[in-house]
Each structure stands twice: as C-alpha cells, then as structure tokens.
C-alpha cells in the first residue's frame, strides 16, 4: 500500500522533509510506518517513546491499521500555548 507520511516540528527538521510517500508491504499499522521511517532516518529513532500519531487527521495509536492512501502524521511532543 502507498501511504503519505507527514512530519511536524523537530521531526521534519531531523528527517529533512515534511511530507513523504512510502510503500508499505502487507498488513501495516502506524508502528510499521514508524519503523520504516526510523530506519531511513535514524535521527528520529529517539522519538519512539514520545511520538504520537494521527491517521487521516484523527488521533491514532501505534496499533491503528493502515489502508492504501492513508495519511499518517507523526507528532513530536506538542508545545502550544
């Protein structure tokens, strides 16, 4: 399946991109997308424990399954206000 990955805050600085399109094989979840991304950009790996995620602009968990065409967003700890 083909998914769009969006990166925010320091994550897009570390990966050098705000939006990426990647192919995932088989039954992928948000965690799959994160693993693929962290292998490609090891600098983001330390965020594994603090990152949260959204799928199609709704809050999601690492276990949320993905479908072809989904938009997955990875969110570093937020700092609004």
């Amino acid at each position: 399946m083909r998914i769009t990955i969006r990166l925010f805050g320091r994550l897009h600085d570390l990966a050098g991109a705000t939006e990426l399109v990647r192919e995932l094989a088989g039954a992928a979840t948000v965690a799959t997308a994160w693993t693929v991304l962290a292998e490609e950009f090891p600098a983001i790996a330390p965020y594994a424990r603090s990152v949260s995620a959204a799928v199609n602009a709704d809050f999601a968990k690492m276990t949320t399954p993905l479908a072809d065409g989904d938009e997955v967003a990875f969110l570093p700890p937020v700092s609004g206000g």
Partner: protein
Amino acid sequence: MAELIRLVSGDEPGEPPAGHGAIVTFIGTVRGENQGRKVVRLEYEAYEPLALRAFGVIADEVRNRWPSARVAFHHRTGSLALGEASVMVVAASPHRAEAFSACRYVIERVKQIAPVWKREFFEGGDVWIEGAAADASDEASSEEAYRRACE
C-alpha cells in the same frame, strides 16, 4: 478577543439576555525570556485539521464537566513577535467558579493535546520546544488538567 467574548456571552435569539454573568479570559503572549534565553520571536506550526479535531474534543470535555459553561478559543500560527498573543481562551458561565475552571481547563488541555509546536528563536540560535506527548484519549492527563482547573 472581543469576538470570542461575544461568542460565549451572547444569548440565543429570543432568550432573555445575560444568563452568563461570569466571563473569564486567558491570553498567552510571547515572553521576552525563557529559561534564561533572550527570546527574539516564536514560530508556531500546527497540524490544522487535527488541531480543529483536538479543539472539538476539548469543547466536548468542557460540556461534560461544566454543562453550564460555554467556551471559545483560538491559537495562532506562524511567526509571532514579543508581546503578541499566541493563544486566547474565553469561558462564560452563570457563576464564576465554573468560568474560571473551564477557562483554565481549556488552556491546560490545549497545551496537552493540540498538535501545535513552538520554535523559539533566541539570541544565538533556535530550538523546538517540546512539552507533552499528545494523547487525546489519555484519561490521566485530562484528570491532571481538571485538577489544575481546581473544580
């Protein structure tokens, strides 16, 4: 700000006016100092559609916790100079306790779950500020916000 106040204190058409006697507002502005650094400006980035969803979650939580309160809030994005307002919250209620609590709760929740990131440009560099891991479904952080709202 006046617009937000109008939103929460206005009454339904046909209703007698002024059922909401207490209006509490919160304004967050860009400070010139943070952790010893001389701040020059801030840049806020948001994941807008998710931010609107997060704001909806917060508004629903307020409705459940303080049925008599109405809230309106707004967060700016982009580059902000010193002294500029980044976030505004308005809460109205028949009595002041609920208005104070609802207002405080909203700003606590915005800081906990709204997908907004602050990049601080200070004298000598810049840094992404990182606070809470955004988890809108985490009961513990909602309870913590409620505790800070003192109700």
